[in-house]
């Protein structure tokens, strides 16, 4: 009995191969014309999948590339002032103890180190002396104050504040649109606290967010000296009492020597305090004015962003837990989006293809 389907297929094969000579001839002619620079595609279902996958990867890249970045702070070291007011030089010359204390505090401070770069250069003692002869003595407290603002012009008010308090700005530098502006200047030491207060008022009045970073100042050193003075004074009082009560002459003489040493120590401390007051005429301050990217309009949001991006050390347990939750949530979201954009279409496509093939196989 004749199999109709097979017969038709046989005929088809015969028909398709019946014109090979003409096919070859025309192929040669076509080859000469087929140099059109047009991409030839053989689209099928898999192309849609590739498009899907590519677009999801492209989206992921786009998200990563456009992710808001905090401003990078470039080490500022260009003003004439900096070249003279060297940290190390001044420390050696007049304020070693204070600087040592400040640097220690800086290390312990909870702050994004990337945002608190302060320039330090070395200068010869001669340069320092020249500067001090001209401008008066100063104590460089290595203070950097960072202001975050959604407004682009916070520089002028800060500059005015320097001048208002009897100081001056010795250098302003802006590196790029998205980089912080650095204002480096001198503030009279006795106006320094007022300067900080005014600065805080200034930014809060204009709804700027403000943070004083590494704003260690004269207080710790002064406190140290005051504490030492108190301690020594108490020791002296106690020694005096003890001496008054003591009857043994030898012991009394020994306590008397201790008392003399203590009094000498007190004298030195008082002298140090006087030196401190005398030497500190100006405080060097670097104010960094950073425009907050539009997306992170509040300082809290910006801090949170920095935390999540691992740019700040999380502090408390709650803070760390929050950061971990955020990070896990972020990755969960990523995995979910990959599933939606990539895996689910893949499974659908594979299922569809398998079903189609099975159906056609059965029907053939």
């Amino acid at each position, binding site marked *: 009995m004749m199999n109709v389907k097979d017969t*038709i297929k046989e005929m088809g094969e015969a028909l398709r191969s019946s*014109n090979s000579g003409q096919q070859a001839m025309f*192929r040669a002619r076509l080859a000469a014309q087929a140099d059109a620079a047009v991409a030839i595609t053989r*689209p099928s279902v898999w192309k849609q999948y590739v498009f899907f996958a590519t677009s999801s990867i492209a989206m992921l890249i786009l998200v990563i590339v456009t992710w808001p970045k905090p401003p990078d702070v470039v080490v500022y070291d260009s003003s004439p002032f900096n070249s003279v007011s060297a940290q190390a030089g001044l420390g050696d010359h007049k304020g070693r103890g204070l600087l040592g204390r400040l640097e220690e505090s800086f290390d312990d401070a909870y702050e994004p180190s990337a945002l608190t770069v302060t320039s330090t250069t070395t200068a010869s003692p001669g340069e320092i002396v020249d500067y001090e002869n001209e401008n008066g003595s100063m104590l460089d407290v290595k203070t950097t104050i960072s202001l975050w603002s959604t407004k682009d012009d916070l520089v002028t008010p800060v500059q005015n504040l320097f001048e208002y308090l009897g100081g001056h700005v010795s250098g302003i530098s802006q590196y790029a649109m998205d980089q912080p502006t650095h204002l480096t200047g001198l503030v009279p030491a006795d106006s320094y606290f007022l300067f900080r207060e005014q600065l805080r008022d200034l930014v809060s009045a204009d709804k700027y967010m403000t943070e004083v970073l590494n704003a260690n100042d004269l207080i710790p050193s002064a406190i140290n000296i005051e504490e030492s003075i108190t301690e020594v004074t108490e020791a002296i009082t106690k020694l005096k009492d003890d001496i008054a009560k003591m009857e043994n002459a030898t012991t009394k003489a020994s306590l008397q020597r201790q008392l003399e040493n203590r009094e000498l120590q007190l004298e030195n401390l008082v002298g140090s305090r006087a030196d401190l007051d005398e030497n500190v005429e100006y405080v060097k301050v670097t104010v960094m004015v950073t425009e907050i990217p539009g997306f992170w309009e509040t300082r809290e949001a910006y801090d949170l962003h920095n935390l999540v991006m691992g740019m700040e050390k999380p502090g408390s347990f709650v803070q760390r837990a929050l950061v971990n939750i955020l990070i896990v949530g972020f990755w969960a979201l990523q995995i979910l989006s990959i599933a939606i954009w990539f895996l689910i279409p893949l499974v659908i496509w594979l299922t569809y293809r398998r079903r189609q093939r099975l159906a056609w196989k059965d029907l053939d």
Partner: protein
Amino acid sequence: MQKQFLELYDEYYPKLYAYVLMRVRHREVAEDIVQHSFLKALDNLASFKPRRGATFGSWLFQIAKNELVDRIRQDAKLTFCQTEVLDLNPTAISTIDQLLNAELAVEQKERWQKVLCAIEHLDEEDRELITLKYLADLPYQEIAKTMNKKPNTLAVMLKRALEKVRVDLGI
């Protein structure tokens, strides 16, 4: 680019030729239509924007069908049943020998001739489907795009068309 197009040409020329030949029953005319179709495809390659599931094959067959429409308007409808052919168009190929231009065994020739006549008795859509599926050897996906029907529908239609052929042949 050229290589890719020629690969497509190698793949689709025999299929398209078989399909067109079955429609026009004239070797020279079929060759002419096929060649015109390929040239047109090459010229319009830049504008080839495949939609969902569309392939180069379905696009090429669509071009060929448009060419065919023009030619068929000029010629009368031809069939393989000898008496009718002679009446309608004396230049048309009326036998399977002429169609294939090849020597065939008598038994095979008779068998094929009968089947072709039975296919000829089918309605237009069934005939088109059998031609595309078994003579041109197109996959369901491309036939679906060419005939604008779903593959599963085509499969059912094909089954019924074959049944009709069997009935016509008395099997």
